[in-house]
C-alpha cells in the first residue's frame, strides 16, 4: 500500500485502489442502472395500464418482450442496483472509515471486485441486444423454461443472463470477503466489536449471510448453464433430474439475499436516526442480537416461496412457522428504532425524513409478508400482485429511501459538500407520495386475483374492473420518475455548487466524521483511537450534546456513557 496520492488520472479515478473512489464507482454505476431499471418499470407499467398502445420511448411491447422487460427489471434492480449501492457502495465508503482504517484490507482485490462487477454490467446490458432477445424467464429463472432454448425461444439472452449473474456473484464474493476482513480486523485500538457502529455490524452480517447462501446457487447456476449448452439433464425430469431442485437452490439463496439488502439499509438508518434525533441508540446489543438471529433464521424459511410449487405439502407447516417467526427479530429491531425517538430532540433534515419514511413504509411491507407467510393464505396470494406490492414495499424503501437517506447524509464524505435541502424536500415529497400511489393499488389488484407477469390483464374478465387501479399505479411510476429529476440535478450540481461541508456538518459521533470531507488518500491525518461507544449523543449532564468516538476523554470525570453492557 502506498501512502502518497497516486498521480495519473487513470490510477486516481479509473483503476483506483482507494476505497472511496471504488465506492463512488459502485454507487454511480448502481444509480445509472437504477435509471435503466426504472425505465423498464415505467415500460411494463405503461403496458399494463394501456395494453398494446405504443409506449413513449420504447414502442409497442410484444408479449414475449414483456417477459424480458419484467425479468430484466427485477434482475437489474436487485443485482445491479440494490447490491452495488447498498452492500458494495456504502460498504466500501463507510466500513473502513467507521473502523478508522486507512483503506480496505485488500485494496487491489477491491479494485478487482469493482471491475468484475463492471464487466457483469456490460454483459447484462449486452444481453438486450442479442438475437432472440433478453432473458424472459423471470428473475427467478425457473427451469425448464430457462433450461432449454425451445421452451422460451430465448437463446443467448439467457446464457448471458446466467453469465452476468455469475460474474456479479464473484464480484460480491471478493468484495464481501474484503469487507468482512476489514470490519473485523482493521478496527482502531480501543474499538471492540461492541463499539462498532451499527452500520458496520449490519454490513458484516449481510456479507456473511451472502457468502454462505450464494454457494449452492452458484453450483445450481452452473448446472443450469450445462443443461442449456450441453444438454445435460440436471433439471429435466425425462433425464432423471428435478426442476424443483433449482427452485430450492434459488430460494435458499434468494430469501437470505433479501436480508442482505435489508441489513445495510437498516444500518444506514441507524446512523442517520441517532445523528438527527440527538439521542443514543435504544438497546444497541439488543439490535445486534436481533440482526444475528434474523440472519440465522433467514436460512430456514426459503420454501415459503414454494408453498404451491409442488412442494411436499407436509413441508408447508415448518416453513410457515419459521417465516412468521422471523417477524419477531425485525419487530425488535424496528421497535428499538422507534424507541430511539422517545425523548429525543429531532432535527428534520432530508436525510432524516427519508429514514423515517423508510421505517413507516417498510413496516407495511413487513407485515404483509406475514400474510404471504401463512401457507393457507398463500394459496390465494402466491404470485399475485399482492406479493408484488409486498416486495416493493420492502425493496423500494430499502433501495431508494435508505439509499437517498445515506446519500444526503454522507454526501460530504463523498464530495466534500452538502446537497441542497430545498430540492431535497421536493425530492422527498414527490418520492413519498408517488411511491404510495404506485403500490397501494397493487395490494387491491392482488386481492382481486391479478396474477404476476402477464402482459395484458384486460383479457381476463375478473380483472377488467381493476383497470382504473392499473392506470393509477402507472401514473404513480411516472410521477416517481419525475420526482427523481430534482435529485439527479441536486446530486450533480452539488458537487460543484454545494455548500462546503467541513469535517462534521451534522455533529455526528462516528469515526468517519473525524477526517476531512472528502477524506484524503489514506483517510485520516493521524492514527485514530476509539475512546467510547459509537452513539454518545446528549450524554447525561451539561456540555455539548455529542461526544465523538474519536475525542480523547477530557480531564474532568466523564459521565458514564457506556451504551453496551460490558458483561452480557
Amino acid at each position, binding site marked *: 500500500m502506498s501512502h502518497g496520492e497516486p498521480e495519473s488520472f487513470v490510477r486516481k479515478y479509473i483503476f483506483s485502489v482507494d476505497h472511496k473512489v471504488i465506492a463512488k464507482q459502485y454507487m454511480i454505476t448502481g444509480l445509472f442502472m437504477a435509471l435503466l431499471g426504472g425505465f423498464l418499470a415505467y415500460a411494463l407499467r405503461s403496458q399494463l395500464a394501456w395494453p398494446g398502445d405504443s409506449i413513449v420511448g420504447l414502442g409497442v411491447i410484444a408479449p414475449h418482450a414483456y417477459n424480458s422487460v419484467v425479468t430484466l427489471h427485477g434482475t437489474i434492480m436487485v443485482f445491479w442496483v440494490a447490491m452495488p449501492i447498498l452492500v458494495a457502495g456504502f460498504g466500501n465508503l463507510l466500513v473502513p472509515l467507521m473502523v478508522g482504517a486507512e483503506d480496505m484490507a485488500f485494496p487491489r482485490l477491491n479494485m478487482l471486485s469493482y471491475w468484475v462487477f463492471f464487466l457483469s454490467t456490460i454483459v447484462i446490458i449486452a444481453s438486450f441486444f442479442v438475437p432472440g432477445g433478453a432473458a424472459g424467464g423471470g428473475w427467478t429463472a425457473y427451469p425448464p423454461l430457462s433450461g432449454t432454448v425451445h421452451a422460451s425461444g430465448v437463446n443467448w439472452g439467457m446464457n448471458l443472463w446466467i453469465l452476468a449473474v455469475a460474474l456479479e456473484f464473484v464480484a460480491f464474493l471478493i468484495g464481501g470477503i474484503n469487507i468482512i476482513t476489514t470490519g473485523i480486523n482493521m478496527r482502531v485500538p480501543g474499538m471492540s466489536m461492541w463499539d462498532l457502529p451499527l452500520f458496520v455490524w449490519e454490513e458484516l452480517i449481510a456479507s456473511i449471510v451472502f457468502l*454462505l*447462501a450464494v454457494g*449452492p446457487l452458484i453450483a445450481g447456476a452452473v448446472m443450469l448453464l450445462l443443461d442449456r449448452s450441453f444438454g445435460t439433464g440436471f433439471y429435466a*425430469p*425425462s433425464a*432423471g433430474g*428435478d426442476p*424443483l*431442485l433449482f427452485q*430450492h437452490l434459488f430460494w*435458499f439463496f434468494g430469501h437470505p439475499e433479501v436480508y442482505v439488502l435489508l441489513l445495510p439499509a437498516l444500518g444506514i438508518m441507524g446512523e442517520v436516526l441517532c445523528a438527527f434525533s440527538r439521542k443514543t441508540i435504544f438497546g444497541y446489543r439488543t439490535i445486534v442480537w436481533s440482526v444475528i438471529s434474523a440472519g440465522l433464521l433467514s*436460512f*430456514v424459511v*426459503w*420454501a415459503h416461496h414454494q408453498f404451491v410449487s*409442488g*412442494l*411436499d*405439502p*407436509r*413441508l408447508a407447516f415448518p416453513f410457515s412457522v419459521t417465516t412468521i417467526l422471523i417477524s419477531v427479530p425485525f419487530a425488535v429491531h424496528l421497535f428499538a428504532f422507534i424507541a430511539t425517538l422517545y425523548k429525543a430532540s429531532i432535527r428534520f433534515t432530508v436525510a432524516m425524513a427519508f429514514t423515517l419514511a423508510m421505517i413507516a413504509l417498510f413496516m407495511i411491507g413487513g407485515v404483509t409478508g406475514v400474510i404471504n407467510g401463512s401457507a393457507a393464505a398463500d394459496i390465494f396470494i402466491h404470485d399475485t400482485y399482492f406479493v408484488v406490492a409486498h416486495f416493493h414495499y420492502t425493496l423500494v424503501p430499502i433501495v431508494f429511501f435508505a439509499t437517498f437517506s445515506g446519500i444526503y447524509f454522507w454526501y460530504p464524505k463523498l464530495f466534500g459538500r452538502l446537497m441542497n435541502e430545498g430540492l431535497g424536500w421536493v425530492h422527498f415529497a414527490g418520492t413519498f407520495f408517488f411511491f404510495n400511489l404506485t403500490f397501494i393499488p397493487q395490494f387491491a389488484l392482488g386481492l382481486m386475483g391479478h396474477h404476476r407477469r402477464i402482459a395484458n390483464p384486460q383479457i381476463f374478465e375478473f380483472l377488467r374492473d381493476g383497470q382504473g387501479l392499473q392506470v393509477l399505479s402507472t401514473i404513480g411510476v411516472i410521477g416517481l420518475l419525475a420526482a427523481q429529476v430534482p435529485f439527479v440535478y441536486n446530486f450533480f450540481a452539488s458537487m460543484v455548487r454545494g455548500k462546503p461541508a467541513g469535517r462534521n456538518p451534522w455533529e455526528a459521533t462516528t469515526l468517519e466524521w473525524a477526517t476531512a470531507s472528502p477524506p484524503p488518500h489514506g483517510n485520516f491525518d493521524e492514527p485514530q483511537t476509539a475512546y467510547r461507544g459509537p452513539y454518545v449523543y446528549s450524554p447525561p449532564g451539561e456540555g455539548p450534546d455529542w461526544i465523538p468516538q474519536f475525542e480523547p476523554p477530557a480531564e474532568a470525570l466523564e459521565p458514564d456513557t457506556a451504551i453496551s453492557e460490558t458483561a452480557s
Partner: protein
Amino acid sequence: MSETTEHRSNYFMVFGILVAALAISLALAAVSTGPIVVAAIFAIATVKAYLVLTHFIHLNVEPRFIKVLVIGLLAVLTVLYIGLVPDIVWVFGRMEGA
C-alpha cells in the same frame, strides 16, 4: 505465528493416520457394498477431512470465531440437505420413470 509453531502437530503422524484410513476404506469397499459399509466409508472420510482441517489447515489453533464459522457453514449445508430430502429424494407426486 509463533503460536502456530508451538502448537504444531506431528505432520508425519497425521499423514500416517490418513493413509491408514484410506487403506481401511479401500479394504472395506472391496469386501462389500452394503449400506453399513458405505456408512462406515463415509464416517472414515469425515474423520480424514477432520484431521486435515484441524492439523493441516490448523483449525486447532484458530480463534473461536473461525470454529464458529466452520460449524455454522456445516449447519447451513445440513439445513439445505434436510429441507430438500422430501422433495428431491421422496418426491411428492412422483410419476413413473421420473
